[in-house]
């Protein structure tokens, strides 16, 4: 596997910008804060407070959910859009919302609120106990095999803040692997990126400089492990962080798998 790129040691940068710095577009709200868990009679809901307002993030479900709850003991990066939906669990609903766990431990994030009658989750797809039906996962039918003429295709893998690979990464990775093997790709080029997210207070949260390399190397290595021939694989990374505008910055935390016939 061919690798190139430049590694520069750095630490996580939460860099305050000048007073005149840009802020996210209207409606978008991005911040780092402790998550809060509130119990209900059914499943707990997750909240976070920012500048005196409480925001609703989502509820506990399981691995099939789009929303993965954050962790007490860690801060979370919240990237969302303020919706006009009625509040849930006392929080302003962010929709869509992306929540990433900040890897560093923070014992101050330890707020667990008891259930109150005024906060109800009535339509939880799954309660805290066993499911009422057996099927936890609904397998989708396999995609049809690709047909010629084969073209160069990009598959984009998205990441939580400062993560190398996760559940949400698997779909695109598996699609890329399936396509590469089906067309007997001549090259599978993996490029890793890192991002600098614009927060609502005008500061930036920038991923460490080595995460782009980790993403590329780990993704390429995993593709090899699941059957993409090593001789076709290459891993590169872009050292410069992609600067977000405060809207959809989560899409900048990515790697691209380019499959070349």
């Amino acid at each position: 596997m061919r690798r190139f790129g430049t590694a520069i040691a750095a630490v996580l940068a939460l860099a305050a910008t000048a007073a005149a710095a840009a802020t996210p577009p209207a409606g978008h709200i991005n911040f780092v804060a402790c998550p809060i868990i509130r119990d209900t009679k059914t499943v707990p809901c997750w909240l976070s407070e920012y500048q005196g307002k409480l925001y609703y993030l989502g509820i506990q479900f399981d691995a099939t959910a789009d929303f993965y709850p954050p962790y007490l003991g860690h801060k979370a990066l919240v990237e969302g859009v303020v919706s006009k939906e009625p509040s849930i669990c006392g929080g302003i609903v962010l929709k869509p919302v992306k929540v990433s766990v900040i890897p560093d431990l923070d014992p101050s994030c330890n707020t667990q609120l008891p259930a109150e009658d005024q906060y109800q989750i009535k339509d939880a797809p799954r309660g805290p106990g066993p499911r009422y039906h057996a099927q936890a996962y609904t397998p989708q039918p396999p995609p049809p095999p690709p047909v010629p003429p084969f073209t160069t295709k990009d598959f984009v893998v998205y990441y939580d803040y400062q993560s190398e690979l996760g559940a949400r990464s698997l779909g695109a990775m598996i699609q890329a692997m399936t396509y590469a093997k089906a067309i007997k790709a001549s090259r599978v080029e993996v490029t890793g990126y890192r991002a600098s997210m614009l927060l609502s207070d005008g500061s930036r949260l920038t991923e460490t400089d080595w995460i782009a390399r980790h993403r590329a190397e780990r993704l390429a290595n995993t593709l090899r492990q699941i059957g993409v021939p090593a001789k076709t694989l290459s891993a590169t990374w872009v050292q410069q962080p992609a600067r977000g505008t405060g809207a959809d910055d989560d899409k900048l935390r990515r790697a691209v798998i380019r499959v070349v016939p």
Partner: protein
Amino acid sequence: MSPSIFSRGRRVAGVVATLLIGVSVAAAAVLAQSAVDPKAPGAIGVTAGQVPAQNVQAQTAPLPKPSDADETQALYKATDGWFAPGSGAFLPADGAFDDASGKLGVLNTSGQIDTKGHPFFEPMGANGRACVTCHQPADAMSLSLTTIRARWSATDGKDPMFAPVDGSDCPNLPQDKESSHSLLLNRGLFRIFLPWPPRAADGTPIKPEFTIEVVQDPTGCNTDPVYGLKSANPMVSVYRRPRPVANMKYVVGPDHGLAAGQLFNPKNIAMPMALDPDTGKPVTMQIMSDARDPTLKTQAVDAATSHLQMAKPPSAEQLKRIVDFEMQIYAGQAVDSRGGSLTEADGPKALGPHNLAASPPGILGDNYDHPVFYDFNAWKTRAPNATPTQQAFRESVARGYDIFFAKPFWIRDSQHINTVGVGNPAKRTCATCHNQQMVGMDLASGWVDLGTQNLPWAEQGLQSPLASGAPQLPLFKITCNAEAPPHMFLGRVIYTHDPGRALISGRCMDVGAIVMQQFRGLAARAPYFSNGSAKTLRELVDFYDRRFSIGYTDQEKEDLINFLSVL
């Protein structure tokens, strides 16, 4: 000895498997499975990556004195229920063995076995042990502390079970002293020695994400110049219970692998599953405390060349007979001294070895369509012929199952549980994780850090009533490098008695993570947890109660214990 005796099989490629990934973004698809990755943990041929290095140490360790083994043979039949290596005894097709709360049923679906010449029962190695030494039918194919002590008493410590290689705290200790076998005699623990750094399938080192320091070494083995971490053949010694070799279709899957061809480990979702070196199929990764061996066959080689001190792996025919035998043995409690027969026709459908043999494996039981242990409704109402004691016990069991299945509590700070999409804490029940029907293992294979090994929750942490007294287990300081994904709830500096899967994967996030065990035959094989830290089912329940601040009442604890004891 030279590692070169271990043959390497050819790589297997092109096996078609079906992908089933349980995440919303993934689809089922038919994929061509890859060959075993020689640079990831796993096995090539019949040999897992750690085995050649282990075998070097096993061949270095002294053997029991020859005369001791001879003397011991004469004592073999003195202990009821004990299957001595090479004794030639018959294992009945449908046996019953006394245990702490009644009788354990052991079913051999192929019928009675003449153990004479059978490689599971014959001492194949140099130290007089056989597989059966540590996997006794009367102990649910594991080994109870009661049996261990009985063997010590019956043989004056000369049973091959107490062989220096791993039946003592360290081979360098005077083997005739009881104190040299303290972990086996007090907690039922055998020494497991694993190469450091970890080994890939091809035996080459894996670069770990952390350094390991020995903080406390009460057995002396981790700092020993011959057997320790800084020896010429660096090894980490940890101490673990032997797991039951019964009901194995639930452990390895119906076809010795994942029927659905699951490509990724659901608990550690970025990690591809290990592959069976013979078939190229993904395996369940549920064997042993750390899933270091992908199949029962490679596990047999691992065990034979370390525990039995065989110089070479067993033959292909011997391995086949061992694996065939392991796949046909079922063990479950059959009689309770208070509850009576557990296998009545109209009784609970989950109990007894025959039901274990008849039920299909691989059923997700955390739901009301296929509950983990079916139901105990038959015991919730008074049976016409039941005595008051019997009825009270059965009602208690039924309540215990309801608590296990449906009572929520907060699962907190558990790596590979809280990190798989449910958040921290998560409001769930015992059945959330103990979810495979009939056995209570997690159907989503893999390892979890429950806190049994890592401080602060492990025994020497402040929370434990076992914190007082002299240290028994080694304690390691793990320091993870700055670029490694950390253990999400302990960070990058972790104190642990046993790094668990991390000794195989080299990953920081795996420190202290142990593969979940099955629930069957519990009454016959105390103590519990991989480090024997729960001497009784009460201590096991107390650990969970303490660990997750559940707040069980005494009645609830008794109900749970009674429920667990009939499995």
